[in-house]
């Protein structure tokens, strides 16, 4: 692929990639650099794109993983791995989901900022980008149960953080 044709891909996806980087890092200057690197990584890896998933999903996967790697390197506050083989319980899932989606937007923003980047990314993927479990499995290269468990744990930690930050509020 030549640079001009790659420019067409850039025009189509750059806003989404940039916005995803801003959402994950909360830093526009850093997102500028990350977006640059993500497109370069995509160009170099283009030959490996096997068309099993959509190009957008593949690029999303690079974006997600690159941002997360960067945040892990700089913040070094990765949460401990959870037991991913345990099945997620639907009842708990529903309860946490309803509570999370009823938060005020400004408070949710503060909570997300205080969360571990991996948890933040899981919640953005699920509730902002509305990726299906199948797409999340592709992006994260995880099993269905592992994806569900990570989302559940991210929700739990987000709500715990919310109650910690806004203890006086119901």
């Amino acid at each position, binding site marked *: 692929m*030549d*640079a001009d044709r*790659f*420019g067409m891909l*850039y*025009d189509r996806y*750059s*806003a989404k*990639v*940039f*916005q995803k980087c*801003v*959402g994950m890092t909360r830093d*526009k200057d850093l*997102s*500028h650099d990350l*977006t*640059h690197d993500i*497109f*370069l990584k995509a*160009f*170099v890896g283009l030959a490996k794109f096997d068309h099993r998933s959509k190009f957008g999903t593949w690029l999303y996967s690079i974006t997600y993983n690159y941002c997360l790697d960067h945040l892990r390197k700089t913040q070094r506050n990765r949460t401990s791995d959870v037991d991913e083989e345990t099945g997620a319980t639907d009842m708990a899932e529903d309860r946490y989901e309803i509570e999370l*989606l*009823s*938060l*005020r*937007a400004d408070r*949710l*923003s503060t909570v*997300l900022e205080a969360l571990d980047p991996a948890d933040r990314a899981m*919640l*953005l993927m699920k*509730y*902002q980008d509305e990726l299906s479990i199948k797409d999340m499995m592709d992006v994260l290269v995880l099993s269905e149960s592992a994806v569900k468990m990570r989302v559940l744990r991210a929700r739990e930690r987000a709500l715990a953080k919310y109650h910690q930050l806004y203890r006086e509020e119901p």
Partner: protein
Amino acid sequence: MSENPFKIIRSTDLPPDNLRTDVLGSVKMVMLLMRVVQLFVADPGSALFENVRILGRSASSRSGDRTPPPSDPT
């Protein structure tokens, strides 16, 4: 039901204009580097084999195309 708060806080920032120039400049540089690297990592044995195979195929097709000499009517 209230609106999904995740949608409300979604970033609407657009990438700066100069980023496109930066990305495509870097892409051109990578393309150039890849071509240079290819000069050094090319497998000469394989390349030779390919050339020989192609030459061999064209030679055999030439011989296959060769029309038989006209028979002497006398």
